[in-house]
């Protein structure tokens, strides 16, 4: 099975993830909830609509979703899945991966500021703050894995992940898992960092930045967000699951199952936890950075 299967899975299955999270939350709330495939229906509906643009906006507002999605698709081609190398695997690719996440964030923030809305400015401001604090946790966590496994590419780090790797480095890998999980929640704007349901509250950042987007643009943004959730999730799952010990077909199935379990975990977290106060979020992210750093120190010996 080649690395393209993983890319294909990312492109096709990514919108399923928010569906799974919503179903889990509905279960906890005692509701039936929307169908699992609701995000696909939403995308299809949005793609069929026209658009309304604010008179304040310029070409940047229209370019933001396009560039953001393109960067996420390239990032999907960097992330290994199911224990096989990604189509674009090379030494140091995790730095490029972080760079691509940065591009998406950069254009999303600019598109938000382009509207001149105070709400969207607020969202962009918070996104900038949290992203700046999440970046060290992310890069250092992956560096810890690189030092432990000797691989310099994401595929080299995660593709060789077996029971032997885990038994040799349980503590640092577990620390990195937790740290990356926090980054995953922050980058995807989930509780306890952000509440994806309350797009008119003053508390949130990601949804408010896309308040003015509609129609196909919003579809691009939602699809890019789903892809981002998939690729970041696949890194967490790739570190947590020693899939190298399984045969290829099974490893792939196990990874897909791992992604779904991750979404269930996110759903459970969202059902049980409240969103943190805004001023507490930096502490959470710095905490994640410290965990990554700790993993690195253990790796240093």
């Amino acid at each position, binding site marked *: 099975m080649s690395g393209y299967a993983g890319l294909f899975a990312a492109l096709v299955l990514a919108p399923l993830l928010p569906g799974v999270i919503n179903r889990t939350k509905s279960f906890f709330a005692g509701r039936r909830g929307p169908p699992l495939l609701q995000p696909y229906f939403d995308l299809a509906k949005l*793609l069929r609509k026209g658009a309304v643009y604010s008179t304040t906006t*310029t070409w940047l507002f229209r370019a933001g979703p396009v560039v953001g999605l393109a960067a996420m698709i390239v990032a999907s081609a960097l992330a290994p899945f199911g224990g096989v190398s990604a189509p674009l695997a090379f030494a140091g690719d995790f730095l490029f991966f972080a*760079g691509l996440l940065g591009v998406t964030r*950069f254009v999303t923030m600019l598109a938000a500021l382009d509207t001149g809305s105070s709400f969207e400015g607020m969202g962009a401001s918070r996104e900038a703050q949290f992203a700046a604090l999440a970046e060290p946790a992310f890069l250092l966590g992956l560096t810890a894995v690189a030092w432990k496994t000797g691989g310099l590419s994401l595929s080299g780090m995660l593709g060789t992940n077996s029971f032997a790797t885990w038994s040799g480095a349980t503590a640092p890998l577990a620390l990195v898992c937790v740290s990356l999980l926090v980054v995953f929640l922050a980058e995807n704007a989930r509780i306890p960092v952000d509440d994806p349901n309350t797009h008119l509250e003053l508390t949130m950042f990601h949804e408010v930045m896309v308040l003015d987007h509609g*129609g196909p643009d919003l579809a691009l943004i939602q699809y890019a967000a789903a892809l981002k959730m998939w690729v970041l999730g696949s890194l967490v799952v790739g570190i947590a699951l020693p899939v190298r010990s399984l045969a290829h077909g099974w490893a792939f199935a196990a990874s897909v199952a791992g992604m779904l379990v991750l979404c269930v975990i996110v759903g459970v977290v969202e059902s049980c936890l409240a969103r943190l106060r805004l001023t507490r979020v930096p502490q959470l992210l710095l905490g994640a950075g410290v965990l990554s750093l700790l993993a690195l120190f253990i790796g240093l010996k």
Partner: protein
Amino acid sequence: MTLLLVALGLLVASGTAALLCRRSPRAANLIGAGGAAAACALGLIPAVVGLGGGEAKFDLAWPVPGGSLSLAIDPLTAFFLLPLFALCGLAAVYGAGYLGGRPGRRSPGAPWFFFNWLVAGMVVVVTARNAVLFLLAWEVMSLASYFLVTHEDERPEVREAGWTYLVATHFGNACLIALFALLGPRSLDFADFAPAAPAGLLFVLALIGFGTKAGFVPLHVWLPEAHPAAPSHVSAVMSGVMIKMGIYGLLRTLTWLGPPPLWWGGLLIGIGAASGLFAVLFALAQGDLKRLLAYSSVENTSIIALGLGVGLVGLHTGTPGVAILGFAGALLHVWTHALGKGLLFLGAGAVLHATGTREMDRLGGLSRSMPLTSATFLVGAAAVAGLPPLSGFFSEFLILYGAVQHAGLHSLAAMVALALMSGLAAAVFVRAFGSVFLGAARDGTVRGAHDPGAAMRAPLAILAPALLVLGLATPVLVPALAPVVEQLVSLPAQRDLDAASAPLAVVVLGSVVLMALVALIAGGRRLLLAGRTVGSAVTWDCGYAHPTARMQYTASSFAQPLTALFGPVLRTRETADAPRGLFPDAVSFATRTPDAVRERVWRPLFAHVSGALHAMHRLQHGRLHLYVISIALTLVVLLLWRLS
């Protein structure tokens, strides 16, 4: 070599001619700018040739004690000459529009004189092979830039900035004189240096002397003062290439000092990390666009220092792969930052030219009225923030890639700092671009703004694509830097650089795919929207359909969460006039973030020194005959001492 000498001659001659051309400001402007641009175009040829390797020399006897007029181009020199000529040439073209477009003011002869001498000074700094000549050129460069900074000396803050710059630069020069005295007790020619002091001491002297020019914290204080005060094309040259002369000096000194101990690399990483984080936080808190860019320059020279630190640590620990990546990344960042920051300062100049203000909180919505300035500024911002596929990403990639391969505390510190800095730098530039060019104008003064004239537009339009090309060319460029890197590490570097170009090539491939996807998705989106209703309305403000420009998030409000988080470092001062009574009329709110080092270290220190030296005032009594007597007495004492 001949071409370089012709270029030097042309610079000096055209500068002097512009100064003498008092009658016609137009002619002075044309002669000064034309001479500088032509000289820079000429100079590019020997620079490109020199990068390939080998050494071109020029020697002439010089009656100055210890001095000799020896110039040479080796790969390291050529590497710095290239951005120098490229950016100065473009800045000269820009300056022709900038200075020429303001009739009625004083003649542009003097600024062109100093500009051309500044360029000539920098050329001699990187080509000089004799300490006396080097120091002389260094002084010419410093003084010429001082007079350029104080060009608008009717404004008190400009005079203050010039004074700070003059003091700082001569503090650095004092260290350099000590450095060269210790390096060459026998001969002041670079080739015959025989260090007469421990290498560690020389390294520290070089770090202080050249670090003052490069702007390492806490010696950076002159930068955020001088850059906003200077005319914008001068800021571009100062920030883009002049502060790189400090990096050049440091690199050149390293080639004389022999194998580095571990603490040199550690010290550079420590300085780079502290200085970079400090600068990026202060950049985030600035309200003045050019001050923000100046702090960002400090941050970027810190990234270069981090790269050099990683390189030195790699050299010491016997991992040449790491060393070569660190040095290559630092070198590439010199070019990236020269072009990127040059572009940003020129763009900021266009904004200042069009609106008359540098206050970001008053600007906004300029992308509509200044499309070219806005698009090119965006490219520069993304490049300096280190986003792929622009060149800034590639240099930071090389440094981080080198650091990751060296599992040690030093590289860890470099990584933590770089990771934090890159996220914060993105925030800085989103804030800068967003508040100046996006949204709606926050103040009536920006209405009627427009892109500048052709002379000022052309450099912007050249520099922005250059940043993309420089990024995409790195897989070819990095192996071509082998002669420069070999000069620094004294090891064969070609194999490692070839190996490093493999991942770079995949990044380029990914970037090309990215751009293709952007085109594809944009086309798809256009197809989808064709024939559908595409309406326009006011920005959605949650039902309140009367948004005004004053309700927007400003640059200050954008930065507030981060400045509050790092409040203990920044110590932002707020002055507020809160609304009072049932019908409050005038309210105001202002924040100011003065430089912490300047306010808390240098100002008290200088106050102390000046207090202690107060007693010396008694000597300054103004009675001429007593001065003459004291001079005569000193001479007699010296004579007796010499005879005895």
